[in-house]
């Protein structure tokens, strides 16, 4: 008997998809703007509640939770497997989407096509939750495509603006090349391991057992263990990680990001920067640490795969460092407020990549905590910048001068977010950066901390540039009638600002209770992840 909570958890993405597609149909009947807004907010609220249930369940009751669609056991059917790592990220996604949906009501109140906007927004949430919760590499591909298509659509939301169409076109081409490459990687994975289930791949990379799953296929697919499988694994890892590094915007695959993120409406920029790139990070982490056991290479059955995984980790550190430096240098030169913040995203993804590349417990904690902190702080930064843009109607920092004096709440939240991302104590960004520093020092790579310091000081300068432009600079023209936007905008800002402070102050508790278990689930407990999925199969086969 399946626990009913399992149904709720497993069905979260499908429910959200259904909610997304119902909206255009319903809006044919109810031709009211208010209806679309209320529908959008309630749909994201439902998703947020579901993710919160999943989070609560995996942390306090049982982890991981395996949900089989249509009760088909793992190698045949699609499986959703939620452990503490993706349950945590799912909660962040749910909460940020809810806040963004509320914020969008006010931000887009003068635009038409609001029902399409909310359709795409909820669709993107569904795709993102699917990518996070899925336990099947092909389903990950499908959900990645759902997320990407909605993202391309939302970047092109202002379809009469040159820059949004240009950015969306470039983003769409780059992104679809990436997903196609990932599809090729899937072919190689299927050819090498004869399964698409994550738990089974994780099992096959660490055991020589001639596993009884190969019910289907001829002699070529009756794969007994041979060392040559490692070559297929290496090729698949290379292609898949390339594809994910496009989604995560790690140098040199970051070019689309500074174009695409500013071109979208500000709430969408918040989601793209705060959450969408994290989907790429999540996939990288899942592939490296759960499927290929990068944190404990000694459990890998192929010595060849060990080399491959270690080379990948070094590559992640080098590329992360390059991303951070290049983004920092280019960030200072921007005069468009949202483009500047978009470059900062590349920088922070660089930090996260470095943390992932360290493959120590501290490094992984830093990476995961930074993923969450950056999601919160960057969403806040984009939303606050969006409030300025909403009120004044320009993205140029010089033209925004002096606005901040008349909008104290927005300015305060903006400064909190900026300081958090620069990493000043006691905000949350400091804690994760601190963990990253210590991870480097602990591993004996102390000189590399200089990269974080240099890029952080570039970031400090860039944020001070905005703070100067928006708040401290004397107004160039007479500002009349400008004040803080309505509570629909400011309340999400304040909630996120509170989260920034809370995640910093309560960090000892959060690290202990939330982050460390998720690291253990991600990287140090592969048998648990595998056995949960296999239990279902054994039950299905009758014991």
């Amino acid at each position: 008997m399946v626990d009913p909570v399992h149904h709720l958890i497993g069905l979260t993405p499908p429910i959200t998809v259904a909610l997304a597609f119902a909206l255009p149909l319903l809006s044919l009947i109810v031709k009211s703007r208010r209806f679309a807004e209320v529908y959008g907010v309630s749909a994201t609220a439902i998703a947020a509640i579901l993710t919160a249930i999943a989070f609560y369940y995996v942390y306090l009751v049982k982890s991981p939770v395996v949900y089989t669609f249509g009760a088909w056991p793992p190698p045949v059917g699609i499986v959703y497997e939620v452990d503490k790592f993706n349950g945590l990220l799912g909660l962040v996604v749910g909460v940020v989407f809810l806040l963004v949906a509320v914020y969008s009501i006010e931000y887009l109140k003068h635009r038409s096509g609001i029902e399409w906007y909310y359709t795409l927004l909820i669709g993107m949430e569904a795709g993102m939750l699917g990518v996070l919760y899925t336990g099947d590499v092909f389903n990950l591909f499908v959900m990645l495509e759902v997320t990407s298509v909605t993202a391309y659509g939302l970047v092109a939301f202002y379809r009469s603006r040159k820059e949004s169409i240009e950015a969306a076109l470039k983003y769409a081409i780059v992104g679809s090349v990436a997903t196609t490459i990932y599809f090729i990687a899937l072919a190689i994975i299927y050819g090498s391991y004869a399964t698409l289930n994550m738990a089974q791949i994780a099992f096959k990379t660490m055991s020589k057992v001639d596993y009884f799953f190969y019910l289907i296929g001829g002699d070529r697919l009756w794969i007994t263990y041979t060392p040559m499988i490692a070559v297929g694994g290496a090729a698949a890892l290379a292609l898949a990680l390339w594809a994910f590094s496009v989604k995560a915007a790690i140098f040199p695959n970051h070019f689309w990001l500074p174009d695409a993120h500013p071109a979208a409406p500000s709430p969408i920029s918040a989601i793209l920067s705060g959450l969408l790139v994290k989907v790429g990070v999540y996939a990288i982490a899942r592939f490296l640490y759960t499927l290929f056991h990068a944190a404990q290479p000694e459990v890998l059955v192929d010595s060849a795969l060990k080399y491959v995984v270690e080379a990948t980790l070094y590559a992640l550190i080098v590329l992360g460092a390059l991303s951070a430096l290049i983004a920092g240098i280019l960030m200072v030169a921007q005069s468009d407020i949202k483009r500047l913040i978009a470059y900062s995203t590349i920088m922070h993804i660089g930090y996260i990549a470095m943390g992932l590349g360290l493959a120590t417990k501290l490094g992984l904690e830093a990476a995961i905590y930074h993923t969450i902190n950056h999601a919160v702080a960057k969403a806040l930064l984009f939303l606050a910048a969006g409030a300025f843009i909403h009120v004044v109607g320009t993205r140029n920092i010089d033209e925004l001068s002096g606005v901040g004096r008349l909008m104290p709440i927005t300015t305060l939240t903006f400064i909190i977010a900026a300081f958090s991302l620069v990493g000043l104590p006691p905000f949350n960004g400091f804690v994760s950066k601190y963990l990253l520093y210590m991870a480097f020092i602990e591993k004996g790579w102390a000189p590399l901390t200089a990269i974080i310091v240099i890029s952080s000081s570039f970031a400090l300068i860039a944020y001070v540039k905005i703070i100067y432009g928006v708040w401290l600079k004397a107004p160039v023209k007479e500002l009349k009638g400008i004040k803080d936007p309505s509570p629909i905008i400011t309340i999400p800002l304040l909630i996120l600002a509170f989260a920034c402070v809370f995640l910093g102050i309560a960090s000892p508790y959060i690290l202990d209770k939330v982050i460390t278990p998720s690291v253990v689930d991600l990287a140090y407990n592969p048998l648990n992840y595998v056995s949960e999925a296999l239990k279902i199969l054994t039950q299905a086969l009758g014991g």
Partner: protein
Amino acid sequence: MVLNEVLSIIVNAFVIPGLIFIAITTWLTQWFYRKIYARMQNRIGPRFIGPRGILQPIADFLKLLFKEDITTIVAREKEPIIMLSLAVGSLIALLSMLPISPYPLYAENDIILAIYLTLWPPIALILLGFMAPNPFTAIGTSRYMTLLIVCEPIWLLSILVPVVLTTRTGIAPAYSLFSASMNVASLWSNPLAVIPLILALYSIILAFQCKLMLRPFDIPEAETEIVAGPFTEYSGPKLAFITLLHDVEIVVYSLLIVWLFLGGPAPFTLTSIQGILTLIVKYLVIVFLVTWIKASTARLRIEQAVVFMIKYVLPVSIIAIILATIIPI
């Protein structure tokens, strides 16, 4: 228990190394500094107030503090003081992590915390420059930020050197400012460990000059060129607070160098008379060194300064930290 915690925080914040201690040290240090700076320039220095002019710094500070507070129409009124107070507070918090405090706060891996605390004063100064818009403040502040980009990594790497070295000798708590300061003195007897320590000392003193905008790095507040850089618009109590922050920075960073690199009162303990005297002598040596560099050099241009730091200081600090991680202990 709770009372003890509260007491430790109060003592740290207000007595030692809090406001009282820092006020006295800053006053005496500024007098010493002005006196020897004047001597190097063939002047006499403070003379009239108190014996040998020893009360002059206090008189200057009080005079500025009770002057009229002028804020131009485009400037911010109270935010500069908030930023400056926070910066001074961060420096005192830094001192309370050193063994000089009776209730030192330390833990494993607290070194990054210390480094981040030293980030507050630059941020305060940057925002200060921008809070009073003026072409001069803008130019000065942008120069200051350019300097910071190159001097922050040097600062970090040099501070890490003694910490990494002491941690490698197996002293707990690891990577802590406190344990490093307590145990660095024993490293000076190890000929291999001395090399990275000297290299790091060299680079941290130059980074110190750079962070504090002392000559040859006084480019941001270049007098006669851009009036007073970030501080052009400030007068009265705000200027008093700015000078206070500057002097507290000199005191705190000198104490940090004395403890972290020279081992504080070593070879004696802090509770003995000799120990306190040794600490004072070492402290005065560092202040003298900084003043000497300031008095004997001329101002660089901004790109010269950046190139100098990148070419001659940053590689040294990188070599120091690499040596510190690889040499056998």
